């Protein structure tokens, strides 16, 4: 394992590290005059470069442990690419929004880059310690990002709540990991998996560790019993940060959950299928039903993202060997599509917030179709994708997840998921209804900055493209799944 090889395999991480410092450097050099524009461009360049690196790495189909703790495999690389693109989109869109709001814009973009770094580390961590340090690194950067708008009461409140919840959940996660370490004596996931496979007695001990770890990781993916911080934080945090939190960091949560469960606890499948299944149903129902009641679109999106997390978890619950309907490919394509849709939806709120001076109430959306048809069309497309109407990517994701659930003959779960789609369809349609059918209470079209517009168009195109050219993306997802499943079972 010579240095060049390490450099090649850990290329994305190194690139991000350098970009982070470069961003801070550039911002200092510009002495904070240009509201972080150059810093943002450098950050975006770095992220895209990292994304390219991980795609290039991906094509080489690596599947090996690097430096004892980093498992560079197609599974991890898939999530890295998705996260990097997500963060890049967030940065591009938020330049205009963040311009007047804070002096430390250089730090803001640097933090986002470091958050991306944290995700790329945690996603391919195959060692308990690295998992813990990665999650805490991601959490801490998120606390700061959440509380970035110093003067703003909502942003600080969001940050403090997130901090308190994250710290306690982190402690419980740590407790779980320590028990796991105690039981198996090693910190490497793969060896833990083999040890637990062999010794029957460690069976339910593993479960205790898993339950506690579930709390720690589950909170990141905002699964129901551990989701309560999410609505307040998404609502309070600056919208680009909410976009980041609800997509990239959630994807990281699912990636870690997937890796830990599939590598460390494969033989406990009957147990965690039931528990995760129950959690998934709870998440879907609570997320969707509360979203029904929301007046503010931002808060509605927060709860809808919790609901969507329920669906994504279904992919994991119904994981199985069969090539096409293995569940994990459902989870991944759903997540991939979800990142684009949710980033798009939150960022669109930016434009609305800017126009209405901070309020994201549904009444702001009334008659948007007449005032700014392009934005309305894009938002309608995101809503339809979240509702799962073909030919969008949302449908593709739901299709594969449903397929996996049906493949495992979990009819009740399938039926409950279907009912949820109907409930969810209602409040997604509600937004469309306000935009297209009712008269606008607010005058004047909604102005979106060039950066935001490009991001929205890119997202909208991706949402449709993945839906239609499903085959291209599915092959990409399928063989990244075969990697993780093969060594796991």
């Amino acid at each position, binding site marked *: 394992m010579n240095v060049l090889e390490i450099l090649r395999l850990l290329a994305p991480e190194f690139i991000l590290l350098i970009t982070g410092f470069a961003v801070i450097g550039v911002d200092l050099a510009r002495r904070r005059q240009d509201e972080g524009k150059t810093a943002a461009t450098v950050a975006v360049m770095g992220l895209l470069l990292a994304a390219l690196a991980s795609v290039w790495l991906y094509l080489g189909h690596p599947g090996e442990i690097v430096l004892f703790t980093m498992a560079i495999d197609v599974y991890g690389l898939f999530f890295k690419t998705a996260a990097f693109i997500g963060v890049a989109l967030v940065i591009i869109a938020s330049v205009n929004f963040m311009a007047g709001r804070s002096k430390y814009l250089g730090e803001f973009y640097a933090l986002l880059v470091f958050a991306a770094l944290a995700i790329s580390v945690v996603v391919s961590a195959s060692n308990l310690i690295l998992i813990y340090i990665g999650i805490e690194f991601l959490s801490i950067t998120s606390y700061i990002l959440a509380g970035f708008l110093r003067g703003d009461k909502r942003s600080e409140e969001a940050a403090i709540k997130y901090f308190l919840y994250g710290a306690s959940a982190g402690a419980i996660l740590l407790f779980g990991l320590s028990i796991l370490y105690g039981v198996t004596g090693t910190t490497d996931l793969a060896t833990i998996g083999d040890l637990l496979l062999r010794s029957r007695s460690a069976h339910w001990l593993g479960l205790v560790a898993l339950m506690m770890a579930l709390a720690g990781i589950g909170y990141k993916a905002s699964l129901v019993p551990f989701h309560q911080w999410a609505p307040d934080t998404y609502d309070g945090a600056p919208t680009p940060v909410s976009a980041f939190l609800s997509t990239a960091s959630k994807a990281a949560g699912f990636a870690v959950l997937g890796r830990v469960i599939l590598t460390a606890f494969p033989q406990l499948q009957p147990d965690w299928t039931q528990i995760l299944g129950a959690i998934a149903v709870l998440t879907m129902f609570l997320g969707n039903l509360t979203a029904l*009641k929301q007046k503010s679109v931002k808060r509605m999106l927060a709860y809808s993202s919790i609901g969507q997390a329920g669906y994504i978890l279904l992919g994991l619950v119904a994981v199985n060997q069969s090539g096409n309907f293995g569940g994990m490919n459902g989870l991944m394509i759903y997540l991939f599509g979800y990142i684009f849709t949710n980033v798009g939806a939150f960022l669109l709120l930016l434009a609305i917030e800017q126009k209405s001076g901070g309020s994201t109430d549904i009444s702001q959306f009334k008659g948007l179709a007449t005032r700014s048809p392009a934005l309305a069309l894009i938002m309608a497309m995101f809503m339809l994708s979240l509702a799962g109407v073909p030919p969008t990517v949302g449908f593709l994701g739901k299709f594969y997840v449903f397929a996996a659930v049906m493949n495992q003959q979990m009819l009740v779960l399938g039926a409950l998921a279907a009912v949820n789609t109907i409930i969810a369809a209602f409040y997604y349609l509600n937004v469309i209804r306000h935009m297209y059918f009712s008269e606008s209470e607010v005058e004047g079209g909604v102005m979106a900055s060039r950066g935001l517009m490009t991001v929205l168009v890119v997202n909208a195109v991706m949402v449709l493209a993945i839906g239609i050219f499903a085959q291209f993306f599915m092959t990409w997802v399928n063989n990244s799944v075969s990697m993780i499943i093969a060594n796991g079972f």
Partner: protein
Amino acid sequence: MSESIFNLTWLIPLPTALAFFAIILFANPKKRLSSKIAVGGVIIAWILSWAVAIMFFVNPEFTEQPFDLAVPWIPMGNIVFHMGVAVDAVTAGMLFMVGFVLTMIFIYSTGYMSFPGHLDPEKYPDAAKEGLDPRYSRFFAYISLFATGMLGLVVADNLLMLFIFWEIMGLCSYLLIGFWFDKSYPDPKQITPKAAGLKAFLTTRVGDVLFMMGLIFLFIHAGDLNFQNIFANQEFLHELSTTTVNLPFFGAVTWAGLISMLIFWGAIGKSAQFPLHVWLPDAMEGPTPVSALIHAATMVSAGVYLIVRMSPLFSAAAHGGSGVMMFVAFIGAFTALFAATIAVAQKDIKKVLAYSTISQLGYMFAALGIGAWVAAIIHLLIHAFFKSLLFMGSGSVIHGVHHGHEHAHAHGHGEGGHEEYFDPQDMFNMGGLLKRMPITGWTFIIGGASLSAFPLITAGFWSKDEILAHAWADGHMAVYWTLAAGAFLTAFYTFRQIFLTFFGSPRTEAAEHAPESVRSMTWPLVALAFFALFGGFVAVPVDFPVVGGLASDFLAKLMEMQGEFYGLHVAPARFDWTPALISMTLALSGIVVAWLVYGWKPLKAKQSDPLRRWLGPVYTVLENKYYFDELYYFIAVRPTLWLASFFYLFDRGVIDRIVNWVGAFNRWLARTLRRWIDEYIIDGAVNGVGLVTTWTGAVVRLIQTGQAQNYLLILLLSVVILLLLIPFGS
């Protein structure tokens, strides 16, 4: 040569159809032109039909192998349904009658359709100037379509095509009865034309639906509906009359019985027999040519024609032991008597004729019921002639009285504004019109005599007597005596009508000034009067002492031969003195009694009907037609409307709410529809989704308190629960 003539049969319904489309597409604005097109079309059809009919009469050998020309028309499954035209003795007879009567009525209506009384001229200036009905051309379009329907029905070679033309006639009768749709009467109880049209269509529709069921069952069993194919092969009829199907409360019924019963109900609907008769009298609201055309000559007789066509099936059913023939006879006889009784107490000239038509049709069905196939057909043909004559006569009387009323009114006799409504059709406003309208008068008397079967000289006597003779000969005494009573009453009300309208002194100024009708109206009356008198000789039985040998009853013989072809063994009625004498005495006594009551001491103006005093309450019952209209309204119309509104409430209330219970938008519904709010709160418990969303709302408020430490507490509790699951869960 004869073969080529028959090839023209399919052309018969065509001219009037082309006339219909020509009028509605092109000639609508020009009234005179459209009437010329219509009359031209019907004349061509008349010539063609007479050519075919006479050609058939001339060479009777066609009864063995009736002419049939069919073309493949509709693919059904792996067979193709053939449609075409057929001519046999019955068709020939009908063609002869229908062609002629249609033409007479078309010519008559060109004169009759002048500017109607109930429209005020200012609204239709040009029509008033021309003196024609504003919707003159539309009328001719409708009657051309009607003519197509009737002609098509007569020449049809299969039951489905017959059914199609049958319904087209139903449509035309609806359009024509409701022709003066904007006419309304001060007295709300009196039925308006538009309501009469609707009533006619719906009542006949009930019959048609049962007819369609019969047709479909026949089609299922026979695989084909062509008359000659089905009724010519005996083993099919035998098989049909033996296989049984058990119905809920009828028990085991043979298929033949069931099909013929259903088809008979179609005939009951169309020919206005007992249970479904209510629409015919109200159909008099239409213009008189329509009443003559539809409700005397053609449409109502279509029902009889259908049963005549179906008689092989009926007789097979009878052999198979089903009582359908007896049922037909009973309905026929009962309707004959029942309608006659009502006719006695009517004061409207057209209503009397309407009930008399129902009664005469009753005679025909009674004849069919007792198997007198030939008598029924002959009475059908002859009745068409004198009944259309009577209707047209009454039309010209009404026309005259109306003009008289206008005339009197114009001369200042009327006091200023429109005095109370003057009904030109009410016989008690007429009197002594024979002097004013001689041609109409005398032709009317001839028709009346023929209707009441004035012995020996009128055609009506021979055809009705034939039926009575058959009833007597075959020993159906119950049927015979009802028909005989009916005959007496027929004579009585016919001559009551004649004495009231034509004899005595005019009771109103309108009657005094009633002018004779235009030549185009009176000339057809004369032509029909000729047939009313001499038509009967076609049916004079051979062995009648004096006149027997004179005219060869070739038509009767022709029908008998045709019967053989269809396996109906129709015994020719040997002439027997007793029934003939009884019917003669009945007819004469009817006339004498009528003379005693109305002719001897003619009524004065404003004098009510003497019968009212003698019959008292019975008279009012008869006048109100045994209250059948009210009865049907009570047992049929009101429950349907009530059921409709009940289902609608059920639809909006229950199902929608169940749906809302399922759909998640109930909360949203409450928010947007304020007026529903009470219902939402009242049965909030009922609609579950509303409940679920309020419950989750409450739960969310409970746990999403915004307190970070509450969240942590719940985090702890969830971890504890998860840990508890392990020892107990797996």
